[in-house]
């Protein structure tokens, strides 16, 4: 509820309430803020907003104050009183809540001054963190639904399709298929009923771009879908949301209701001939349902098993009707393409990959979170300039892109521009945009095993190459991690991978061998060390790794023993400590804590 707006001297406090900040207590901060402001005698008219994910999860809960442009980090409920009294009441900064730049060691007033934000270019994420996702008025106040108006009253459906083709927009879900071409293919099929689907089944572990968009700016997805419905003359739309994303389901539900009330959904939208409505379908917890034919099977009331796609969904899709399926981020770009025009939108990016891409930068990087950058930005810029470099001053080993269907890009290739074609050429793929940063304490054989294990459980199990191939690969890789296996097994891995690529029924199966193939391509020596020497160079595989303390550098400070969760370390103060191998669980905490590099791995 907003108090009466008085012209001058009004302030707005935005509290990030994306899932990440919520887990860190931001809802308590928001509620405390509302409560205390209501009872406060501060002489400034202030209203509050709970926004979606700002993307900078590392420093949450984030609280922003405008128009002062102040950003406070890691705010707790107990800080609220001070924020109201000092910052809102007197315009004073609270230094300890400001971000401290690790390079300059200075406190920074606003997130706009931080590289993490400065170097981003927000298009799909343009509203998130600035608006209350449950408020359609907020969306409208930032050019919301203007693109819809433009399209319904000044453009024909064919023109809209042409505009999208001209923009060069390629699907942001992983396939990278030209969106405009997909829409055109749908319109080429004679039918009285057509469907629009938004694929919100973001399943790549480590990826949360779509979650943030659905939670933090649901209207951009809805507006995009209505524009799409107009272009291909669809009558009904579905947003298929992953079961685990309950906040996204909730916010989308509110947004759809509000859109109906304002006449953006329903019969004769804004006085035009278009009648269109959207239904939310919750997934059942299956990664494979991100594959479009499995997704449609799921909506129809079945297990999520894909089918051969020799006849495309644009010809025969949901319930046999022509269907356009696009990813959340793809839909989120549409209003901007229409408002700004195809040329303007396509003025950033590379030749083959126009526009921006949202990445989830996670893993062993300092600034974990969501970043949106122009296509063509290099991995180096993303990881070091925006991400702030590697955690704990360790060395970068590889970056995993494209989720379980993608591959690893080794540190030597850091200056690679991130776009669809470069990543594919390097043996990986763009995927949905997950960037997992791995340091030298990551074992690439174990990573391959991890992904294969994930896929073995997520495969639908229908076709032989994928189901049986994954089972065999998992056995072999698990053996490698225990120091067992032979060169013949490596050859079998290659043969099985080839069969899976060529003969699997769907994209999950066809790309399931990628984690193995790409780690073998760039990190074969690690595989050989496991097989031939029973040695894990990264010190990760538990059967092959022993942590021990080198008495030379050890000062007996006892920090390691303090943090050992199983009390495996013993020693007198100021004397060299010792790890009991029988108790040690190889978690590595001691090595993380030791300031003298005394904990070694063999």
């Amino acid at each position, binding site marked *: 509820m907003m108090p009466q707006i008085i012209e001058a001297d009004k302030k707005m406090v935005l509290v990030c309430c994306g899932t990440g900040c919520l887990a860190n207590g931001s809802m308590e901060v928001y509620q405390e803020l509302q409560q205390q402001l209501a009872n406060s005698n501060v002489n400034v008219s202030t209203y509050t907003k709970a926004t979606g994910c700002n993307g900078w999860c590392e420093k949450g809960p984030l609280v922003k104050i405008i128009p002062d442009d102040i950003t406070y980090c890691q705010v707790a409920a107990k800080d609220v009183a001070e924020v109201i009294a000092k910052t809102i009441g007197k315009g004073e900064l609270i230094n300890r809540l400001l971000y401290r730049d690790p390079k300059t060691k200075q406190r920074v007033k606003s997130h706009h001054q931080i590289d993490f934000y400065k170097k981003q270019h927000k298009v799909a994420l343009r509203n998130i963190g600035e608006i209350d996702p449950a408020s359609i008025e907020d969306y409208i106040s930032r050019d919301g639904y203007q693109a819809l108006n433009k399209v319904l009253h000044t453009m024909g459906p064919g023109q809209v399709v042409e505009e999208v083709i001209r923009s060069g927009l390629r699907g942001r879900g992983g396939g990278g298929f030209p969106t405009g071409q997909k829409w055109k293919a749908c319109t080429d099929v004679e039918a009285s009923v057509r469907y629009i689907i938004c694929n919100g089944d973001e399943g790549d572990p480590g990826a949360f771009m779509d979650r943030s968009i659905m939670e933090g700016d649901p209207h951009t997805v809805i507006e995009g879908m209505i524009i799409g419905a107009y272009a291909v003359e669809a009558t009904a739309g579905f947003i298929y949301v992953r079961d685990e994303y309950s906040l996204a389901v909730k916010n989308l539900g509110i947004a759809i209701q509000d859109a109906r009330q304002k006449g953006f959904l329903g019969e004769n939208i804004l006085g035009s001939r278009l009648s269109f409505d959207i239904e939310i379908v919750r997934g059942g917890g299956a990664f494979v349902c991100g594959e479009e034919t499995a997704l449609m099977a799921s909506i129809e009331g079945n297990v999520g098993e894909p089918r051969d796609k020799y006849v495309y969904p644009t010809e025969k899709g949901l319930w046999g009707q022509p269907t356009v399926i696009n990813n959340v981020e793809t839909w989120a770009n549409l209003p901007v393409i229409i408002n700004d025009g195809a040329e303007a939108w396509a003025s950033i990016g590379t030749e083959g990959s126009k526009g921006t891409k949202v990445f989830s930068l996670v893993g062993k990087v300092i600034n974990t979170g969501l970043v949106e950058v122009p296509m063509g930005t290099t991995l180096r810029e993303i990881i070091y300039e925006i991400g702030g470099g590697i955690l704990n001053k360790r060395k970068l080993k590889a970056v995993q892109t494209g989720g379980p269907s993608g591959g690893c890009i080794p540190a030597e290739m850091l200056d690679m521009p991130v776009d669809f074609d470069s990543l594919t050429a390097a043996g990986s793929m763009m995927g949905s945009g997950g960037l997992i940063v791995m340091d030298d304490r990551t074992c690439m054989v174990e990573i391959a095993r991890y992904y294969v294990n994930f896929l073995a459980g997520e495969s639908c199990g229908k076709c032989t190459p994928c189901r049986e191939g994954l089972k065999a690969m998992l056995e072999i890789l698990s053996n490698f991690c225990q120091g067992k296996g032979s060169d013949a097994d490596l050859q079998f891995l290659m043969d*099985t991978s*080839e069969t899976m690529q060529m003969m699997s029924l769907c994209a999950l199966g066809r790309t399931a061998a990628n984690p193995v193939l790409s780690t073998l391509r760039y990190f074969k020596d690690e595989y050989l060390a496991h097989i031939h020497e029973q040695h894990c160079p990264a010190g990760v595989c538990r059967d092959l790794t022993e942590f021990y303390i080198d008495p030379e550098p050890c000062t007996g400070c006892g920090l390691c023993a303090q943090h050992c969760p199983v009390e495996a370390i013993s020693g007198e103060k100021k004397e060299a400590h010792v790890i009991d191998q029988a108790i040690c669980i190889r978690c590595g905490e001691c090595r993380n804590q030791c300031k003298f590099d005394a904990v070694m791995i063999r």
Partner: protein
Amino acid sequence: MKIMIDQQVLEVNPGVTILEAARQHGIHIPTLCYHEAFGGQGMCRMCMVEVKTSHSRKVVAACTYPVQSGIEVQTSTPEIEKGRRTIVALLYRNAPDSGFMQKLYTDYDCPENGLAVNNGERCILCRLCVRACEEIGSSAISAVLRGTEKRIGTPFDEASAVCIGCAACANICPTEAIAVEQTDQDRTIWNRTFTMVQCRSCGRSFATREQLDYISQKTGLAGLDLEVCDLCRKKKLAAKIEQFAR
């Protein structure tokens, strides 16, 4: 329309799959999950063939790919044969006891590998049993779970109320993976025991009570009329025909 399969030009009807077109002309493409009663399922991937159109060359499943005018199909290439060999080697692990898989393993000259085999199991997940049960109209069994845990079973692995004990599933299974315990009095399958019915003519046990009740329900024929086994029924029919012929 005209298509080419293995350098032979063939006349085919639109709407058929490459596999159907090949079979119509006596051209062999290996399959494991295909049955002429059900059509292609696209599961085993043994039937993958290379298709060349005017603008592309790709490997597709013959049992689900609809023919298009002018395509050129190769039913075998070195890569495809290697893939088929790998599929057989992988499936053999699940059914090493089955004569069917043993023969395939030898035919495809599968290489040795150090992987574990699943002694005592025989299912290659071709799902012909599921399709048969579906066609009968019971759908007592289905594919359960997901990924590498996928298997065939009745709900909760308990006796199914809709199973009629017809054993169509066991009969169609290529690897004899479905256990049927049969005596003159009863038949046990999928954890349920059915009483056998004796033929009124020859006394042979030939069907379960539930099977005959089901047929009676579907066709409207009286139960008693159904209690004659297929052999005796043929003899009776032959006798009738002979009578009319005189």
